[in-house]
């Protein structure tokens, strides 16, 4: 069975290669090839899953070693894979949601002349993401990590003729690179500490080194996670990344890639367990991002950017949960999977709306769409209910567990984290209700597009609708399924699990969660359901204005890094030209001065040279004679 693991990655990789190298003759069939190969990967994943279920809980991990990737004395990086329960969960999520989004893209990208290439990139992404979760060492994980970064870069900037898209792609890659720096430093520390960076030797030997080293590794891993998962302070790229086509936002920037940070932390559970300081920082980052993303989500009028803020916030939940240690890992992953379903569904819904509205993204120009796009409305609505944690739907189960675990952290920290998660839940309910009301309810505020065509909202084609329906089913049922099918037991052998001792009873927490959700929904209804929504955004309060600008993070980045960096490079160019080059040229000039004096001897007259030759001969003869005389 383990030989199939490479095929998991191989199928989409093959697809990417064929589609990207195949040229125009594949334009007609390209999307089908891409979708097929993603589906192949999913089928293999299912087969492996069935096989895994057939084995006992301790014996479920599979390993496959292809060859030694980098064989250098003392440094062995293997091209080797590990498929355990954690990886399995991700494999199914990635290939499953991935396949659905491939199908969706067939319809969504139908009129794009570069659709073949789009599918090539999507396949590349799936392959890289699978590599990321299947790697059995950190270096190979890094390979996948950068691979998804590349795919994300290519897909965000897919519409390269738009300068905004190109800039967003570049920004995403750069910010991710900062995170990658963390990951590579983490690997370096591992190598010098453990002499290896494979999961087994590193995670098995955490007891043999100092807590300081582990904290350093943990913080560096966290930096990497922040970059990839858009956590504060490296979150700024995610909003801009919405410039990419919507399926990309759904697959990469909602369901899978952005959750890689969570995977990384959970995968490195042993390191974090032994480094409480690092864990604390993880929870703080999670908590801050949770609120940050939620606040940003409240202020955005662009439907995708509002959802992006929401993604950020939800991943904040997961990171926070992962920072809680064994009491939270499982729930982080559980929320990750449920989030994968409902957020992908929401994005696909948003894409469907945009599809019908001449690619308009401003929610203030929607309104009353529920009658025109019933299926989209229903699937989007189910996703909405799931994300706000409506009892019984998937978000309810996963988020509730995280809030409970946050309280169970204990001490003041526990209370603060618990309060933050509850507040986050309220804000989530608020902004999601806002999105829902502005898009599907109220009066029509449609505006003609740039060419003057008024929008004719219509339901999307089948290829787009079917994935939405399936994802909606997932959003509804996944939570309950996990809750009752034993997700905790499934993951426990990998991540470990401990029951937290919450100062509040489970019922209290659940009640509070539902209560804050109702408050959030109510507030939003008062603001956006009862009053008509203005087409032009009001000026808003200071906080709103700041939140519209991503809480000024971009401005800070711009002021410090972009402008500062520009000045730095400009001045360095000047320094290089005048100073470094100048010193050398100055030396040359002084030598030149000396030689200028010597050059007067070289007056260009042949006779003058002849004299010196003649004189030189005379001197030579004199020297010879003298030598013989002595």
């Amino acid at each position, binding site marked *: 069975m383990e030989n199939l693991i490479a095929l998991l990655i191989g199928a989409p990789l093959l697809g990417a290669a064929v589609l990207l190298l195949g040229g125009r003759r594949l334009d007609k069939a390209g999307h089908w090839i891409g979708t097929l190969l993603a589906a192949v990967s999913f089928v293999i994943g299912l087969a492996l899953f069935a096989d895994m279920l057939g084995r006992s809980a301790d014996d479920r991990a599979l390993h496959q070693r292809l060859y030694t990737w980098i064989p250098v004395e003392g440094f062995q990086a293997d091209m080797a894979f590990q498929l355990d329960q954690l990886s399995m969960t991700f494999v199914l999520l990635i290939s499953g949601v991935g396949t659905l989004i491939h199908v969706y893209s067939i319809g969504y990208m139908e009129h794009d002349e570069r659709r073949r290439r789009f599918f090539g990139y999507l396949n590349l992404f799936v392959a890289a993401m699978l590599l990321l979760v299947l790697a059995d060492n950190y270096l190979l994980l890094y390979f996948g990590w950068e691979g998804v970064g590349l795919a994300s870069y290519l897909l965000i900037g897919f519409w390269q003729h738009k300068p905004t898209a190109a800039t967003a792609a570049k920004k995403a890659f750069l910010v991710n690179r900062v995170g990658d720096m963390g990951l590579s430093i983490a690997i370096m520390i591992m190598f010098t500490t453990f002499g290896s960076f494979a999961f087994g030797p590193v995670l098995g030997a955490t007891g043999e080194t100092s807590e300081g080293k582990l904290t350093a590794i943990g913080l560096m891993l966290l930096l990497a996670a922040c970059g990839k998962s858009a956590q504060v302070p490296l979150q700024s790229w995610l909003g801009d990344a919405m410039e990419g086509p919507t399926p990309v936002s759904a697959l990469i920037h909602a369901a899978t890639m952005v959750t890689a940070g969570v995977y990384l932390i959970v995968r490195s559970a042993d390191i974090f367990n032994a480094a409480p300081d690092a864990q604390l920082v993880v929870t703080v980052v999670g908590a801050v991002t949770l609120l940050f993303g939620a606040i940003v989500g409240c202020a955005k009028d662009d439907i995708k950017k509002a959802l992006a803020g929401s993604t950020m916030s939800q991943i904040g939940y997961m990171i926070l949960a992962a920072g809680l240690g064994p009491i939270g890992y499982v729930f982080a992953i559980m929320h990750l999977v449920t989030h994968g379903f409902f957020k992908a569904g929401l994005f696909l819904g948003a894409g469907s709306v945009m599809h019908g509205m001449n690619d308009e993204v401003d929610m203030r120009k929607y309104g009353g769409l529920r009658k025109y796009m019933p299926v989209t409305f229903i699937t989007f609505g189910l996703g909405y209910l799931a994300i706000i944690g409506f009892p019984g739907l998937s978000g309810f189960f996963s988020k509730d567990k995280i809030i409970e675990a946050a309280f169970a952290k204990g001490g003041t920290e526990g209370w603060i984290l618990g309060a933050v998660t509850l507040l986050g839940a309220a804000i989530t309910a608020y902004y999601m209700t806002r999105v829902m009301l502005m898009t599907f309810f109220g009066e029509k505020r449609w505006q003609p597009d740039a060419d003057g065509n008024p929008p004719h909202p219509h339901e999307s084609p089948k290829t787009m609708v079917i994935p939405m329906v399936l994802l909606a089913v997932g959003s509804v049922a996944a939570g309950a399924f996990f809750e009752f099918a034993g997700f905790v037991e499934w993951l426990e052998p990998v991540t470990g699990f401990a029951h937290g001792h919450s100062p509040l009873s489970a019922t209290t927490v659940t009640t509070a969660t539902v209560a804050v959700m109702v408050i959030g929904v109510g507030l939003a209804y008062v603001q956006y359901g009862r009053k008509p929504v203005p087409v032009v955004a009001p000026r808003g309060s200071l906080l709103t204005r700041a939140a519209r600008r991503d809480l000024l993070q971009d401005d800070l980045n711009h002021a410090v890094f972009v402008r500062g960096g520009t000045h730095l490079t400009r001045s360095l160019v000047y320094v290089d030209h005048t100073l470094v080059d100048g010193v050398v040229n100055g030396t040359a000039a002084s030598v030149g001065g000396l030689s200028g004096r010597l050059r007067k001897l070289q007056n260009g007259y042949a006779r003058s040279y002849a*004299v010196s030759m003649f004189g030189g001969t005379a001197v030579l003869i004199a020297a010879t004679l003298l030598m013989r005389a002595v």
Partner: protein
Amino acid sequence: MSVNLAAYATSSGEAFQFWVLGTVAVVGALCTILMRRAVHSALCLAGTMIILAVFYLANGAYFLGIVQIVVYTGAIMMLFLFVVMLVGVTAADSLKETIKGQRWWAVACGLGFGILLVAGIGNASLKEFAGLGAANSAHGGNVEGLAALIFTKYVFAFEITGALLITAAVGAMVLTHRERTERAATQRELAEQRVREGKHLPPLPAPGVYARHNAVDIAGLLPDGTPAELTVMQTLRKRGQIRDVSTEALADLKALEQRSEERLGRDRDEEEATR
């Protein structure tokens, strides 16, 4: 010829010949470098070379002596004279030095070099002279002896010098020969060109001033008495070989005018007197 001529002990005749001709040779050499005109230099050099030929003969190198006269003095120096003629026979160089310190350095180096050479020769032990008698008679004579060496020991060098000579001859032709790539312009074309350019429609004026000077190297005078270089042929102009007679001509003119003035004045006086 006597076998002893080239032997160790030189005859007093040879000594006399050496001192007389040697002095002339040195004077000739000095004249070569001091004469202002290239023709004179060439002639002095030719003289020195002939003297050297005599010395070769005295030293028993009969073949070389003849070659020196025939080839060197006869052919090479003639070549020099041809070139001097091409460049301008009468052109006299200025011996004024233009490069600062060049002459003093040259003289100093030359003196130092000469002293060193002389000292070197004086230092060497050159007391024994074998004489060429045996060597010259070994193959029956000087020419035969040389021939025996040239066509045996030095045959390769000889062949190579042959090649060198041919190359040099071809090279000289290449250097001086100018390929005429276009058809020579006919007189009509030249005339048309002249009209087109519009500078000198009529033929160039002839050289010479009045009837007194009609040599080709004398520029004709313009009405105001200044010389018109255009009248002199291009080659002479370029060599700078124009004899300028304008000052004399002007002086002549002035004298003429004065004389006519005097004559006129006298006539007037006479007229007044007769009146």
